[in-house]
């Protein structure tokens, strides 16, 4: 018993060391989203390309869809763009939120790089972005059939993040939809 007590500090030290060692490899930028599990906030905005068309939350349709926050001033958005085109081609609807941007530059971007979006809401003062808890671009939200945000992904969507972060949740949403029908 006495010998065990003598080993207590060592055990404590190993425990603490393990805990702190794990901390070395955590990503400090990974931030839990406050909006996962909540519904998409209401908005009323113009679109970037289709003249003076006003869009609201009711215009976001689809079994599940992506909300992608982008801007022409954001270099990473350019890197992400080809992959978004691929996703759109595979049949997943993407709605753009053009975040704090210049409308002419944004329209030019879409005609030059091609447009993966159903439409892009022109969020010039970042109000919708703020309601979504956006703090930069690009950010991508996955919304399910009930209009609930299932994932918020800050950063560039690429093959890897799509497979690891998005695909499992999309499968889950599909399963839930099948269950709801049954």
């Amino acid at each position, binding site marked *: 018993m006495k010998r065990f007590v003598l080993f207590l500090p060592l055990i404590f030290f190993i425990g603490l060391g393990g805990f702190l060692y794990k901390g070395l490899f955590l990503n400090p930028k990974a931030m839990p*989203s*406050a*909006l996962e599990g909540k519904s998409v906030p209401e908005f009323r905005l113009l679109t970037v390309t289709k003249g003076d068309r006003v869009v609201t939350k009711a215009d976001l349709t689809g079994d599940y869809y992506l909300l992608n926050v982008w801007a022409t001033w954001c270099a990473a958005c350019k890197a992400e763009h080809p992959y978004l085109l691929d996703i759109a081609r595979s049949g997943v609807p993407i709605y753009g939120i053009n975040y704090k941007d210049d409308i002419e530059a944004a329209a030019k971007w879409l005609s030059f790089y091609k447009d993966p979006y159903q439409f892009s809401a022109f969020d010039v003062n970042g109000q919708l972005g*703020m309601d979504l*808890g956006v*703090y*930069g671009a690009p950010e991508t939200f996955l919304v399910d059939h009930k209009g609930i945000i299932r994932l918020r992904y800050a950063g560039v969507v690429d093959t890897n993040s799509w497979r690891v972060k998005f695909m499992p949740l999309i499968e889950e949403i599909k399963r839930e939809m099948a269950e709801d029908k049954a």
Partner: protein
Amino acid sequence: MKYIIGLIATLLVLISTSSFAGSVDTYQFSKPEYETRFHDLNKILRCPKCQNQNLADSNSMISQDLRKEVYRLMEEGRSDEQIIEFMVMRYGDFVLYKPKVDNVTYFLWYGPIGFGVLGLIILSIVVVRQRNKKANAGGEQEQSNEELSDKEQQALDNILNKNK
């Protein structure tokens, strides 16, 4: 002499104003107490983009927007709690420099006190034990000084006789 005083006065004015030039945007507050509340809130709210700066310190786009939002909400007459709630709803507990006390942060808040108390308990146990040991040890020594066992007495006698 007059010039020198004038120069010193100018310098003093420059020095005293430069320290307020940190934040670029200027706001007109409808009530004077709003201004202090505004600055206090900007100190305790954390910039979501920049890891370790508060809203007052940071000049990132999102911090400028959030400062504007704090100002807007305040002019709407919302309380500090409501403004903080507004930010937490959107950006999560991350925006609070002082974490809330809940299940997740319980250890963070009370852990250090717990460790302190644990340390004091261990220390007092060690001290008390040590004291008892000393007291016991002292007692034994006295006892052995007073009396020798028969064997010891025999041994002592032998030694003393040898030397004779």
